[in-house]
């Protein structure tokens, strides 16, 4: 893992130098400090795959399903209201509608399933995997197997993956790029400083994002309208990987790995909806599903015993 990041570091350096080299020579005092960043998450993944362009979605029955899947990615509540329990959209964690390498692209997942998952200790089909997104990340209800929502998302994923060899679960660009373990243990107070300097402009100081005319522009990162404790993003490690490659928006790889770990800890050190796999108590739920160093569920952070909010609330559309 750390070997991987060492391999990509020289690449990052050369990219940053290259991008600096094309900056017009300007010496104005008005120039503000711009973080060095890569254009997108794909840059450091080594991915060479290009999914088809959306303008080539066919105009037939299959194409309509593909388009519905794409619409669900961008506006989840609008196109799958019966299964979405918060104000997130799939695209919040899958940049460019699930097309971007290094941002959990759907094409990378499509060629990797069916697969055994430690999370539920069974072999999951692609539809099973999608159900998990709705249950945890969208704090909602699982669309039934074979439902239009799962067929549409499967059709869209299949369409995106055109030409990729199937069964290559190690394909470059899948998931989020690995990060080395942090030098210092991730820290709430340092994370808050990173958050205020880099994230609050969009997600707001209270982490609740911003809404305009009833549309969520920037997603809430914790609280009742965010992902629940069962979601992958509730793992500090997973969140750090996502953040390092994808945030701030348009400034991929601009934070240091340590900053990414710290701000992930800060985000995941806040209260959010209960884990739907609730075992009757925080301690029992932690013991069964969260007993690892990357989950703050059932631990005390900033004086709060996280997850101590009782049984999951019933799903509401």
């Amino acid at each position, binding site marked *: 893992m750390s070997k991987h990041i060492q391999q990509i570091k020289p690449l990052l350096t050369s990219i940053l130098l290259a*991008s600096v080299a*094309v*900056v*017009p020579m*300007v010496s*104005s005092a*008005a*120039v*503000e*400090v*711009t*973080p060095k*960043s*890569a*254009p*997108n998450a794909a840059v450091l993944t080594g991915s060479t795959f290009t999914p088809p362009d*959306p*303008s080539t979605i066919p105009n037939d029955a299959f194409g309509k399903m593909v*388009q519905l899947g*794409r*619409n*669900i*990615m*961008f*506006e989840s509540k*609008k*196109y799958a209201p019966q299964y979405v329990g918060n104000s997130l*959209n799939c*695209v919040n964690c899958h*940049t*460019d*509608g699930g*097309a*971007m390498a290094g941002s959990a692209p759907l094409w990378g997942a499509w060629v990797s399933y069916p697969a055994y998952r430690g999370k539920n200790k069974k072999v999951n089909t692609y539809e099973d995997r999608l159900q998990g997104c709705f249950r945890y990340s969208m704090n909602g209800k699982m669309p039934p197997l074979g439902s239009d929502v799962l067929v549409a998302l499967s059709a869209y994923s299949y369409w995106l993956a055109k030409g990729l060899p199937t069964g290559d679960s190690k394909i470059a660009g899948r998931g989020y790029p690995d990060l080395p373990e942090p030098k210092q243990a991730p820290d709430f107070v340092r994370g808050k400083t990173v958050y205020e*300097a*880099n994230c609050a*402009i*969009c997600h707001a100081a209270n982490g609740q994002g*911003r809404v*305009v*005319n009833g*549309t969520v*522009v*920037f997603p809430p990162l914790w609280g009742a309208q965010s992902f629940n404790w069962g979601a992958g993003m509730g793992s500090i490690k997973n969140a750090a990987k996502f953040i390092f490659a994808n945030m*701030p*928006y*348009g*400034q*991929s790889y601009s934070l240091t790995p340590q900053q990414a770990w710290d701000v992930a800890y800060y985000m995941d050190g806040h209260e959010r909806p209960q884990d739907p796999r609730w075992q009757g108590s925080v301690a029992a739920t932690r013991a069964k599903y969260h007993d690892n160093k990357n989950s703050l569920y059932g631990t005390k952070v900033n004086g709060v015993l996280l997850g101590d909010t009782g049984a999951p609330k019933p799903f509401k559309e």
Partner: protein
Amino acid sequence: MAAPAQTVPADLKPRGEQLAVYGDWKAGIPACFRCHGPGGVGVAPAFPALTGQSATYLDQQITAWKNGTRSGDPQGLMHTIALRMSDADTKAVTAWLAAQKPEAAVMGKTNQAGGAQ
């Protein structure tokens, strides 16, 4: 200064709309509407409204960000993006934005993809 809506030249329309509504992630350009809100109506306090502005004004601002001569750029967000935009990109997106009526520019109006991301 607000200007009356203008017409988008046909050759600039597809690229302008793409950048405003969907962005071009290969080039590292997020959609304008992703941060400036659906229809570019603006998101207080840091992301001002884009629709209702003239193409000339918008073009000048992007150029100033690119050159680093415009202040008021928290976290260098627009400097970063402007550097990734070609002159043709700037021309297309500012022409497209200037032609949008604020009340008509709503997310998801086009047949392509759902929204402004």
